[in-house]
């Protein structure tokens, strides 16, 4: 492995702490609120790193997290707040973007230790299947009159086109849902732990927006998680095993400026495939690794077809091959490319994808409940289809 970075190894960023709250169904932690959950996850991450909350110098989050920097400074007693970053965009497009900002802050010396966090308490008025939660999307007037009011229906036409162009079948989507649900059965933290899913149940589940059935869509949850990013040099003084950030990057293809939350004017060649080609290229080049070296991946699974698209966009299988790739069992535990080993957003929890980064760290520490033997390099992706979205490559 080599890296194309000019930054000396000692100053390269790594993840030294992870923390989570309980993950629950939507509404079950509403009495506590997002700030309390953010603080709890952050404290767990800080303690996991062997640090003190006062040592945090930077904060990074995304998707309009409501735990504002001054609230976090107030609660955690941060003395030297030198960096605070909010990544634009809704949903989980910025899950690895906030990590990328933390890496930039640490590697440029703007802050010694940066806390990356995301906290969600799903409000009754902003359910993902409910019109109104997206009233601030600036091009909404071009969608709403035609009944395009929720993420599932905004993204569904690109999935229709993908399935049409590449002969993807419902059974391929089902395999993603079933594989991730199976991983959740060994993860006691997963909201869907103890609730296995069969093909019959999948096929019988109600249609949301064709081709998406209920079990093709991620959950609605309450919970928070957090990471601590610092330099490799500082990590040497800490008790735990540091996980290197080989690359963390925002990106997205040209022509996606009015995509699924606009007039769907993406280039025809990408429309039913995804906008990850540029990001993937930059990411692997930045990390100095190839897709063949990736041991596992945590793929943003807001919707099952997005997982298939991401497999292709990030080079884990060829273009148009994801259906056959998953049908052959490759994404299961013990397969060639195990995915979403904690259950993913579909079956662990939908913490807008930051929990996928947390699981990647666990894998590289050897602590996953569905551990991949000898896991050395892991890919994490955020929500494909957004502009920009983001991804990261981590290594043990």
């Amino acid at each position, binding site marked *: 492995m080599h890296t194309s970075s000019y930054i000396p190894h000692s100053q390269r960023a790594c993840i030294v702490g992870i923390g989570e709250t309980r993950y629950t169904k939507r509404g079950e932690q509403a009495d506590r609120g997002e700030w309390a959950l953010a603080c709890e996850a952050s404290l767990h991450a800080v303690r996991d790193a062997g640090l003190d909350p006062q040592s945090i110098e930077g904060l990074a989050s995304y998707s309009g997290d409501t735990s504002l920097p001054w609230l976090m400074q107030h609660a955690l007693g941060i003395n030297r707040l030198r960096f605070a970053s909010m990544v634009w965009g809704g949903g989980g497009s910025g899950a690895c973007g906030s990590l990328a900002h933390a890496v930039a802050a640490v590697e440029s010396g703007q802050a010694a230790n940066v806390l990356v966090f995301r906290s969600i308490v799903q409000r009754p008025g902003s359910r993902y299947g409910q019109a109104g939660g997206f009233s601030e999307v600036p091009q909404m007037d071009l969608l709403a009159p035609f009944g395009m009011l929720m993420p599932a*229906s905004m993204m569904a036409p690109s999935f229709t086109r993908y399935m049409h162009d590449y002969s993807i079948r419902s059974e391929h989507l089902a395999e993603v849902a079933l594989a991730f649900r199976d991983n959740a059965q060994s993860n006691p933290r997963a909201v869907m732990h103890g609730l296995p899913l069969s093909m019959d149940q999948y096929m019988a589940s109600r249609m949301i927006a064709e081709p998406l059935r209920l079990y093709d869509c991620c959950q609605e949850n309450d919970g928070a998680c957090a990471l601590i990013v610092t330099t490799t040099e500082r990590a040497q003084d800490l008790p735990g095993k540091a996980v290197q950030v080989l690359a963390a990057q925002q990106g997205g293809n040209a022509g996606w400026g009015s995509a699924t939350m606009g007039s769907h004017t993406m280039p*025809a060649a990408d*429309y039913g495939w995804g906008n990850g080609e540029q990001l993937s290229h930059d990411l692997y080049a930045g990390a100095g690794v190839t897709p063949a070296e990736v041991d596992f991946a945590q793929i943003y699974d807001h919707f099952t077809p997005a997982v298939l698209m991401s497999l292709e966009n990030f080079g884990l299988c060829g273009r148009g091959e994801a259906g056959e790739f998953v049908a052959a069992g490759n994404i299961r535990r013990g397969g060639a490319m195990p995915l979403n080993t904690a259950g993913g957003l579909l079956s662990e929890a939908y913490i807008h994808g930051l929990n996928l980064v947390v699981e990647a760290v666990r894998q590289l520490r050897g602590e996953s409940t569905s551990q991949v033997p000898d896991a050395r390099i892991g890919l994490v992706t955020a929500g494909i289809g957004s502009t920009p979205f983001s991804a990261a490559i981590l290594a043990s």
Partner: protein
Amino acid sequence: MTMHNYLPDLGPIMAPQLPEHLIFWEYCAKRELRFQCCIECTQWRHPPAPICPHCGSMKVKWKIAPTRAELFSYTVVHHASSPLLCEHVPYNIAIVSFPDLGDIRIVSNVLDIAPKDLQIGMPLKLVWQEQAPERVVPLFMSET
């Protein structure tokens, strides 16, 4: 043409927020589907934007969309995301392209068609419905 509106008035969520969009809807109120076209480089663009992404010019005219349209992709929505939609599901959402305009597309609905008859690439023709006061929406029907 159908007697009833395909989808109901959903209220404030449909209101334009960007000033660039107001002109688009003003033309729709006159039952004219028009897109921005750069005066300098003659390239079309949509959704409306303050400058031309091809040449940077701010000079624009609004040209009538070509009549040739087709179904680029679609979904059939079964989940009513608003109580107002309960009696309307399942309904289709169409991504309509204009083969003469490259990647310019609009989100719309196809009237008078069963979900199973929606076919990618099918030719469509433009029709209008007054969905709400001062809100006339461009919809489509099968051309064949």
